[in-house]
């Protein structure tokens, strides 16, 4: 049984694309066959984060318009076999694809892959509707900021209106030391407002920016954020993995502080 998961957030810049790239790569490492679909037509990024930009010949719009077969547009990942990317068109806009067309494309991918990860554009307009049109389940990504949580709440409402009733939550870019100081919303605060199950927490990590720029998903690395993504991948596959203790970081900082005090 293949599963179509849409990665969405409402607000931009909270880490949808990064999450899509890392979860896709992580699932492949676990031995699954995965297709990543970038639905952010006109503002495509997933190919860059995956480091596959230079290999694009055909894209999602070409598939929809019948210019090419779907397998011609799918780009094979350069590192992992079993990982494919269906890129978005850059020179078109969201209206180039309809919900019905999207359903046809996803149905085709469903036959070939274990997981289809759909990277959703920011916003709640046509692009969002396209992205969720054929999804079985959704992962909502947010950061612990009031505005992002507000948008996530809106998205959860819209998802449920479209029949995706129980999305899972990823809280990205959490900074334990700020939470401790009371300057950042805590995980509990966020869950209290959104009221959906938590799939994972990703600590703020500079290495993510570095790895995105290099086109190498962090999930393959030993960094803390990479570990967090690997845990999420296992949870998606149905394993029970305890949540990472992000306070560990704090311990490290405190140790460092103590070191300097001496």
């Amino acid at each position: 049984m293949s599963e179509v998961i849409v990665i969405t957030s409402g607000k931009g810049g909270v880490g949808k694309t990064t999450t899509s790239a890392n979860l896709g790569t992580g699932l492949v490492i676990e031995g699954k066959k995965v297709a990543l679909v970038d639905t952010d037509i006109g503002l495509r990024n997933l190919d860059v984060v995956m480091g596959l930009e230079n290999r694009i010949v055909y894209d999602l719009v070409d598939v929809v318009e019948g210019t090419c077969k779907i397998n011609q547009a799918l780009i094979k990942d350069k590192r992992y076999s079993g990982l494919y990317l269906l890129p978005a068109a850059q020179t078109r806009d969201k209206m180039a694809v309809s919900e019905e067309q999207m359903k046809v494309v996803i149905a085709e991918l469903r036959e070939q892959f274990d997981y289809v990860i759909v990277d959703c554009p920011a916003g709640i307009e046509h692009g969002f509707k396209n992205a969720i049109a054929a999804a079985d389940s959704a992962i909502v990504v947010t950061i612990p900021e009031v505005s992002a949580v507000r948008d996530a709440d809106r998205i959860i409402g819209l998802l449920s209106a479209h029949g995706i009733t129980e999305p899972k939550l990823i809280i990205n870019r959490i900074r334990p030391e700020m939470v401790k100081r009371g300057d950042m919303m805590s995980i509990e605060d966020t869950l209290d407002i959104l009221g959906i199950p938590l799939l994972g927490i990703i600590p703020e990590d500079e290495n993510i920016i570095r790895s995105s720029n290099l086109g190498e998903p962090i999930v393959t690395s030993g960094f803390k954020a990479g570990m967090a993504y690997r845990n999420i991948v296992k949870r998606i596959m149905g394993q029970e993995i305890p949540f990472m203790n992000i306070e560990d970081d704090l311990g490290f900082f405190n140790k460092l502080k103590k070191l300097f005090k001496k």
Partner: protein
Amino acid sequence: MQEKDNIIIKGKKEGLEILLPAKVSFDMIFNELQQKLEKNEVFFEGLSNVCISYTTLSAQNRDKISSLLKEKLRTINITFADRSKKDNKNVSNTVVPNKKSLYLKETIRSGQRVEYDGSIIILGDVNAGAEIIATGDILIMGALRGLAHAGALGDEKSIVTAIELQPVQLRIGNLIAVSPDKSSKSKYPEIACSKNGTITIEPLDK
């Protein structure tokens, strides 16, 4: 002591109806009522609507019954209906039924708007960015973080209540209250109502 049941107590949708017998002395009625209430105190306590149906009852005896009910049951609405009068069909209707209401068992999220001509009851949270508009009262069995407008057609007797009352903005009738910039989490259920032309918030159990 007479064991015979002279008083009939009926449970109705609107509340309790107590039928007093016609040809029995008031003292006997009063005693029996007292006994019955004491016997079933736990069961009857807190019932807000009680209708007394009678054939002959002096004003003095009415007061006696009223104070007994208030003492035993803490009843709020007591109505008296004279059965001997012709239109005794309305006896059970002497308790004015509430306006219709809408019950929702879900969380209302940002961007969602609930409008209803009547009262709205929500079992769930109302998140920031959501709007609840009712011509009657608004009851939230959860946290109210969005906007609530009770008495939307101008009824300032309407109320808003929530387990966690922390709305961005509250409106009752034509009154508007804005949440303080630094709001602390309420630790108990609260009720908002209009008093002297402003919206006041106080603990629900007050």
